[in-house]
């Protein structure tokens, strides 16, 4: 869980695809990054124009000499990244953060992904399949076109359950509704927008299954230096930062850094 492997990588774009309007995958030649990455980690992309903060992005794929990022064009930074073309340079630093905790050795895992959350769960799905666990992907989006790369997960060996807000594919409604009605898994891993993650936490609680949530917060440094990206966590969590110590503050909640102690937290340890 240490990020001793983190460094700046001068990568080169080797491929670039627009999966659907506004959703882009950029494949980077980045051998050391690919090697060092564990499932659920992220990188910080240094803006080519240097005019905004670096952007936190999940590491979507990492195999051989390549790593890739998958992002939705939502603002000026992702708009700039979307302009990258094969041959362009992109400097990134990472891998960062703690990935998913697979030490539980669960044999039946439900992965829940909402929207762009899909970017952070491919590696963990692949790792679980490799470890011969049963992996069900619960994948929700606004509409069918935004269920990008779903086939990719199916061919990776996941069972696929989809939901769309507009009913254009799969369950009509929230993906967590499908999760609630499904066969109880041993472990839930989730990444997506915060309302979805809160719903996952509720469902997990109802099902009596523990869940790991990969959170998203506004970042500044991305490396644990600024204490800007925090979430409240029970003070006795193994993930609570050693600094500051809850015992001195007399609080049963501490603020943990999403970038450093996270981005993945146990749902039952969050106090948000």
């Amino acid at each position, binding site marked *: 869980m240490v990020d001793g492997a983190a460094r700046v990588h001068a990568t080169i774009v080797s491929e670039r695809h627009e999966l659907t309007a506004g959703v882009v995958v950029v494949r980077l030649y980045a051998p050391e990054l690919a090697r060092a990455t564990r499932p659920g980690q992220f990188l910080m992309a240094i803006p080519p124009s240097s005019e905004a903060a*670096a952007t936190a992005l999940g590491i979507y794929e990492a195999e051989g000499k390549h790593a890739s990022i998958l992002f939705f064009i939502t603002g000026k930074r992702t708009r700039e990244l979307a302009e990258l073309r094969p041959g362009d340079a992109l400097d990134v630093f990472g891998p960062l953060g703690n990935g998913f905790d697979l030490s539980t050795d669960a044999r039946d895992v439900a992965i829940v992904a909402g929207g762009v959350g899909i970017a952070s769960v491919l590696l963990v799905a692949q790792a679980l399949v490799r470890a011969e666990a049963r992996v069900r992907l619960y994948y929700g989006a606004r509409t069918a076109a935004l269920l990008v790369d779903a086939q990719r997960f199916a061919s990776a060996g996941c069972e696929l359950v989809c939901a769309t807000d507009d009913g254009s594919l799969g369950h009509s409604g929230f993906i967590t509704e499908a999760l609630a009605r499904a066969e109880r898994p041993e472990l839930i891993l989730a990444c997506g927008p915060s309302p979805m993650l809160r719903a996952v936490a509720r469902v997990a609680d109802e099902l009596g299954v523990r869940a790991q949530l990969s959170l998203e917060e506004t970042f500044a440094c991305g490396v644990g230096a600024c204490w*800007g990206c925090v979430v409240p966590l029970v003070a006795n969590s193994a993930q609570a930062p050693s600094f500051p110590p809850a015992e001195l503050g007399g609080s049963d909640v501490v603020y943990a850094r999403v970038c450093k102690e996270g981005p993945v937290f146990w749902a039952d340890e969050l106090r948000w």
Partner: protein
Amino acid sequence: MVTAQPSLATKIGKLELAFPTLMGSGCYGSGEEFAPYVDLSKIGAVVLKSVTRLPRLGNPTPRLVHTPAGMLNAIGLQNPGIEWYLARELHKYADRPCKIVGSVAGFSLDDYAYTCERLAARDEIAAIELNASCPNVASEGETFACDPVLTAKVVRAVRGTTDKTLIVKLSPNVTDIAVIAREAEAAGADALGVINTVRGMAIDVEAWRPRLGNVTGGLSGPAIRPIAVLAVYEVAQAVRIPIVGQGGIETLTDALEFFLAGATAISIGTANFTDPRIPVRIATELRDYLARRNLASIGEIVGKANVGFATAYQYGGDEG
């Protein structure tokens, strides 16, 4: 005719720096966090996150908002308190390949004096920065750094506790920063940090509430650079002690603006969030700039934007 390599060394009171670049308090952790991305032996000093007498949980979330060419933060001085800090944290910083400057915050004169004395006594700490942008509980939460009398008092309070270099960091949220600067100098500051963040706010127009858990926050980054350059310029005219210029420095050009305005060193905060290599890049480019102009040291540019004012601009006038 370039002769020797120009020197980037600079001196802030007794603090001698090989590079004129400090990493802004609260932006750089203890340096360790950025060590994988930048060669710390090529920066002047890390200013540690401000520490207080008692531990602090910090502000509710969210604590950050990005704004045009800048960001607002309201961290709320999350820190373990001075005792834990000294006992369990500070020794880890001993082998940093750059200088370490401690930053002290507080909510009363006693707080400040106590924390500063304890911190400054430690060998790991090369100098002290006084973050006086905190509310004083004894005077209805008035910010120390926004009042000349309180500034003088807090500087005197900490000055008495250490002989190490004392950098007093000024707030831009005042009518006349030169007045505060003179008080700080008279009260014994060895140097001034100009500027801390500018107060600001952002509102979530969907949820109809402030974007920061703390409602208000401090604005940093390139957006505030013109405000900071002017503050350095005005303070440089008002005092004789050195100035650490800061506020939105991202490039060599930005850094030069601060030196020319009167800064003896610069501090880089928010730019590290764009690209951690920026501080070393600026130092390298600064050396080239000096060499190109055949200047031996940065001392030769400090405050030089003053030269020729009278002749270049003969008319009076004003803003608006």
